[in-house]
């Protein structure tokens, strides 16, 4: 009994000492890193009040601070309206200058004036291993700097642009804060959360690349730099998609649709087969790129959606079927949010189109709108409705945001030839 008691005590003791060790470690890390952590504030010049907040961390001895692009996006787009300010652990504030951005990976470099050399974060040389304990730092909801322990769970599999899956609560305001390993080296940057302790981080190598290219050649203009990044990203995306296999798949009773075999495009399906009173039997397959690029709170790009819908008439006349079918295709909308400041209105072209293989005859609509700040990038929308069968139909539809003309047309061509009747 005595032995058992002491064993229990020993076990309890080890558990206690283990938690206190983690706490101690976090506390120690926090104290060590605190001087290089900042709250980043965007101050509206006219009102003198802050319009958005985030976190940032110094990565060089000459005052370069890394944060998220979305923390300072308003300044990047309207530099005359805002200024960027930092607040350090001692309550000191000062102005920051925007140096460089990576809009695709949501990163930005800003610089503060330093009088004496200050400690700064070391960027890790290697990626963490799965299950490794990491510490996320930041200032959630303007409540003060905190440290949140969590676990590295590898890269998010479905993402086109790499994101680390981090198990730990990241909250708004922590955006732009660093995530470090036990050696206090930065392995990621807080960027997003999807609730319930699922957080996403930008891998440290993106920051390394941005910083290196900044050291080599600082950008002439942030807007040009963003244009070039958006252009390169959509080139990479469309090239990957066009060079992947497009699997033929049957949808409904007689339609063949393409399923693009890449992990970052995920498909979902639904049908109304359970509704006995439906006049039209509908099956829908919906595939989309599960991420987007934040430009401003009113403007997102980099999205891609593909939708196929087959319809089969049940005991209704062809005329009625086509009337109801027309209602289904009347309200296609853009896949991304955009406003007047950033895009033109859509212009559309429609025609009856039959591919050379004569496998289908579609009423086809193609619409596009141009970006105002990023020349030669467009949002496109495509909609084709088959008009050659009396009692069945297939609608094929896609939207791509932030794509160049040649890429948009190349994708459209391949897409048009891939949808057909069996």
């Amino acid at each position, binding site marked *: 009994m005595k032995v058992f008691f002491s064993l229990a005590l020993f076990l309890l003791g080890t558990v206690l000492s283990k938690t206190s060790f983690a706490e101690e470690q976090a506390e120690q890390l926090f104290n060590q890193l605190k001087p290089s952590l900042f709250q980043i504030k965007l101050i509206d010049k006219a009102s003198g009040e802050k319009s958005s907040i985030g976190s940032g961390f110094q990565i060089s001895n000459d005052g370069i601070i890394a944060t998220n692009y979305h923390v300072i996006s308003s300044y990047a787009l309207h530099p005359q309206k805002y200024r960027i300010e930092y607040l350090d652990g001692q309550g000191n504030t000062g102005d920051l200058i925007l140096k460089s951005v990576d809009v695709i990976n949501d990163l930005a470099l800003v610089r503060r004036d330093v009088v004496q050399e200050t400690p700064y974060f070391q960027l890790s040389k290697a990626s963490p291993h799965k299950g490794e304990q990491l510490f996320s730092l930041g200032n959630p909801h303007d409540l003060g700097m905190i440290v949140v322990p969590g676990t590295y769970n590898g890269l998010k599999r479905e993402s086109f642009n790499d994101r680390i899956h981090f198990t730990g609560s990241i909250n708004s305001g922590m955006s732009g804060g660093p995530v470090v390993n036990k050696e206090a080296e930065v392995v990621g940057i807080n960027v997003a959360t999807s609730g319930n302790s699922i957080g996403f981080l930008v891998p440290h190598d993106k920051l390394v690349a941005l910083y290196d290219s900044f050291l080599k050649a600082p950008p002439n203009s942030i807007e040009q730099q963003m244009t070039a990044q958006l252009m390169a990203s959509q080139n990479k995306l469309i090239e990957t998609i066009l060079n992947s296999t497009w699997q033929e798949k049957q949808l409904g009773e007689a339609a063949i649709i393409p399923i693009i075999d890449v992990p970052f495009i995920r498909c979902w399906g639904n049908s109304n087969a359970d509704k006995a009173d439906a006049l039209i039997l509908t099956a829908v397959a919906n595939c989309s790129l599960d991420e987007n690029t934040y430009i401003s709170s009113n403007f997102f790009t980099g999205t891609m959606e593909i939708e196929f819908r087959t319809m089969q008439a049940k005991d209704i006349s062809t005329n009625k079927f086509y009337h109801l*079918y027309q209602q289904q295709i*009347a309200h296609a909308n853009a896949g991304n949010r955009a406003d007047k400041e950033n895009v033109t209105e859509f*212009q559309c072209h429609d025609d009856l189109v039959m591919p050379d293989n004569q496998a289908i005859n579609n009423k086809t*609509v193609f619409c596009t709108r141009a970006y105002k700040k990023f020349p030669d990038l467009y949002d496109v929308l495509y909609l084709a409705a088959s008009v050659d069968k*009396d009692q069945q139909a297939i609608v094929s539809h896609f939207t791509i945001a932030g794509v160049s003309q040649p890429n948009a047309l190349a994708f459209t061509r391949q897409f048009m030839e891939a949808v057909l009747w069996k």
Partner: protein
Amino acid sequence: MEVTTTDMPESLIDNDEIAENQSLIEKIAASEIIIEEISRNHKLLHRHRLSKPQIHIGRDYHNDIILDDPHICPSHISIDEIDGQWKITDNQTLNGSYIENKAQKKRPANEHIINDGDIITLGKSQLRILFNHHPVEPTLPFSPFESFINLMRHPVVLLSSLILFTLIAGNVFYLNTSKEVNFSQLLVPTIGMTLGFALWPAGVALVSYLSKNETRIMAQIGISFAFFNLMWFSDFLEGVVKFNSTSDSLAALLIVLISIALAFSLFWLNSYIGFHMSARRRLVVAASMTLLLFGGSYLVQYSNKPDFDPRPQYNATIMMPSFLISSSASVDDFIEDSSKLFDKTKQEAVKE
């Protein structure tokens, strides 16, 4: 001109008999006078033809023309023929009497020598005095529309137009309802729609009744529904054209012109049936109504249009395969046509 004719030297008149006859006619003519009671907007209410040398007008019952207007005195005015001329005498009335004509402004009527076409105001009533040589408008021939209107108001034709309209409306409801519907569910909105559309001819007929024109409600209903049915047909035609044409073609514009022409014709016939007016005025009225309809609906659309529309506006008119008449383009052609949009939007982006 008239003055020079009467002032002509007598030697120029080579037939004395004619001159004598003429003076005889004038004498008879002078003793006859036509007095019209007219409304404020100069519409005829009553017409009196009198051949007495003295005419009494007032509110009490021994007058030749009895006017039921509380602002008129019992013996208001008298008109006397003196040497072939008619003279007004105002019997020192409370509210007075006034005279006006096209040439002169309103002035007191007492001691006034009446000219053809003069209008006398007494109390709140108006009288127009005409002599029997007053010119009349030339006779109007029956317009070819008259026979068309008569056909449309024929009970059988009228009923068929109404039934056709109701059937089409019911069919449109049926085709656009995404649930299963039974006959009675269709009946209520269909009858409602027919009654709603019948308000238009009924309204026009009411206005023509109120403005003292012939009501002719059956003709209005017949014509209106004949045109409503034509408009259904032009809607259908528009669908076929939009389905078969590409966005670059002008055919859709042509169809809009057809519906404008239909509306104009309907308004023109409505006013032809319901109101007496000059041909020019009728054109102006019909054109203004058409402008009001199309311009008004355009204005409503325009004012509801947001400053920036994030949604694409496209033509997605589809019809069943049997209405497919035009041949399809190839993928290459479509890509080629679509590529032109990029330059268009880019220019717009640069412009702003």
